[in-house]
């Protein structure tokens, strides 16, 4: 699905990613954990195509395509989805109008027909139920006046609507109470299929009780320094990151 090789990225001349390697296959869930400042959000931003970051070295292959050559919108159209850590409020633009435009532009890119109003509304009903998002929120302005939990649920709702190949959840759990966390995780799990993959970026192990990863990676100082089964997350929860830092720094 995605193969990241020796990725180096910097912002304002400061190198944040320093040779990151990651391989995620269809049907898998990967968790990326790590201390603050390790480069977790940078990785998400670089994959989504934020232009402030400069890629100095490395490659990203996304289903046979050179991801780094694609514009942000084309990455989304090819099936990459980023659930934002801080979803943006867009006053005046209704969620519905936004999603219809989004869905239709993706369809146009793929040479498919526009979705009919009837099918679209049926899809909205089905997918908003998945994340228990009030239908009223679907017709409001994008994220405007939404609570923190509603914003995150709206991200997963959008993910459900767009049905991406690869979803990157950037700290989707941060700031969520346990009920909201359960709803969000439940939504993600229901969307899981053998054809798609998920990268869960998180600071806390708690989310991984609900979204069970196949592989856990530790990102530290711009690189993946350790990978292991889901139990690694528990170990990190228990022991913190210092032992990993010590291990890496000793090398």
């Amino acid at each position, binding site marked *: 699905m995605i193969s990241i090789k020796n990725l180096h990225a910097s912002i304002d001349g400061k190198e944040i990613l320093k040779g990151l390697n990651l391989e995620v296959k269809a049907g898998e869930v990967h968790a990326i954990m790590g201390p603050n400042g390790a480069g977790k959000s940078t990785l998400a931003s670089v994959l*989504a*195509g*934020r232009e402030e970051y400069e890629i100095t070295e490395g490659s990203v292959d996304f289903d046979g395509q050179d991801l780094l050559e694609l*514009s*942000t*919108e084309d*990455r*989304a*159209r090819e099936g990459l989805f*980023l659930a*934002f850590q801080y*979803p*943006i*409020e*867009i*006053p*005046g*633009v209704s969620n519905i*109008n*936004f*999603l219809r*435009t*989004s*869905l239709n*532009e*993706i369809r146009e*890119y793929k040479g498919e027909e526009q979705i009919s109003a009837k099918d679209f509304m049926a899809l909205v009903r089905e997918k908003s139920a998945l994340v228990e998002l009030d239908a009223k929120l679907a017709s409001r*302005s*994008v994220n405007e006046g939404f609570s923190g939990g509603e914003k995150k649920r709206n991200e997963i709702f*959008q993910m459900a609507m*767009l049905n991406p190949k690869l979803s990157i959840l950037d700290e989707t759990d941060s700031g969520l109470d346990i009920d909201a966390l359960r709803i969000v995780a439940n939504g993600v799990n229901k969307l899981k299929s053998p054809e798609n993959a998920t990268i869960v970026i998180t600071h806390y192990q708690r989310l991984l009780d609900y979204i069970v990863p196949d592989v856990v990676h530790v990102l530290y100082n711009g690189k993946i320094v350790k990978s292991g089964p889901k139990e690694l997350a528990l170990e990190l929860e228990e022991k913190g990151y210092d032992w990993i830092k010590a291990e890496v720094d000793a090398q």
Partner: protein
Amino acid sequence: MNELIQESKVAAFVEHLPQTMLAIDKELVSKAVTTIKSTDFPTTRTEAWKYTRLGRIAAISTANQTAREGKNLSREDINSSYQISKTGLTFVFENGIFRSDLSSGEFPAGATIKPLTGCDKAELSNVGKSLQLENEVFHAMNTAHAVDGMYISIQDKAIIDAPIQLIHLITGKNTVSNLRNFIQIGKFAKAEIMQSYFALDAESSFTNVVSEVIVAENAHLTINKLQYEEEGNYHISTEQVDQAKDSIFTINTMTLNGTLVRNNLNIEVNGVNCITNLHGAYVLKSNQHVDNHTIVDHKQPHCESNELYKGVMDEKSTGVFNGKVFVRKDAQKINAFQSNGNVLLSDDATVNSKPELEIYADDVKCSHGSTTGQLDEEAVFYLRARGISEKSARHLMVSAFIEDVVNKIENEAFLNYTHSLLKERFGWDF
């Protein structure tokens, strides 16, 4: 010794324009002539014209007003290109001259609607009563040189459902059109008026329109106004409105084209318990310059005024907003809201915004605000990250911004027509 008599530039400007033949007060006309002789075009040193230069209008060579010959047009042409509402009465004027051959529709019961040239002295006795002439060259020019215009008088208690439409076309080169409208809405009456301004094969032409509006006790009037004269043409308009108690007056001004447009709204709220709504959208590009000057004068208590103006400026265009709300000493319990928002889409676009409140009463609720900014780039990225092209993302955000005020238009035909022009001129879909 030779005495040098210097004529004002305005006097030279109007020299070849026809004198008004309307049955209005002769004294008024001579007062206007005096103003023209003694006053020059305002410069940017005049506070009310600080951000709007009139050089291009003053430079029109007015000597040859040949375009006064009517254009060869048919009712079908009006129907297909300019008529906004398919119902109601449509009055067409070309360069200020009434075109009965292009006008159509049923005269509604309870209303007298005709061109001003068909009105007698008694009917026009109130014309010019509250319009300031001193120092107001465009008011004076209009008063001395108005060719024609619409006379609308709605009887007490008459409810006119279908809109009354005025379509004004300016044609030809260097044409100057002085159009005068007189509108009175009787007690407990209700009406809706559409004014739309277009240019047809026009160049360096200038429309100067004054509408006097009297809204009687408990009357409801909505004016939907559309300004879409092609670039290269100029437009100055004044709405002088007098509201009596318990009345509701609403005006929606959509300015989407024209090189220089200036709108003056002077609303005198002379009665208690009135509602005044002023909404305006201006969407500009190239070198357009659009200036909205509004005054709401609350002279009586228990009234409400809502003012919302929004603008989108692209390329080298300039928007000007100056909104003034007066709350006089005895006008207690006034709720006055005023808001102006602007989005600049280019580094060369400019906006000058000046919301003003002058309050002499002590028990009022008033607010005013002005915002100017660019599109939120984070939001553009967010939309792009959902597969929306950068162009569509910007369009979605700009249209959401401007739709806030465009959607104040209740008349569906007028709203649709506005949308179709936004699509025609800017390629926007709604």
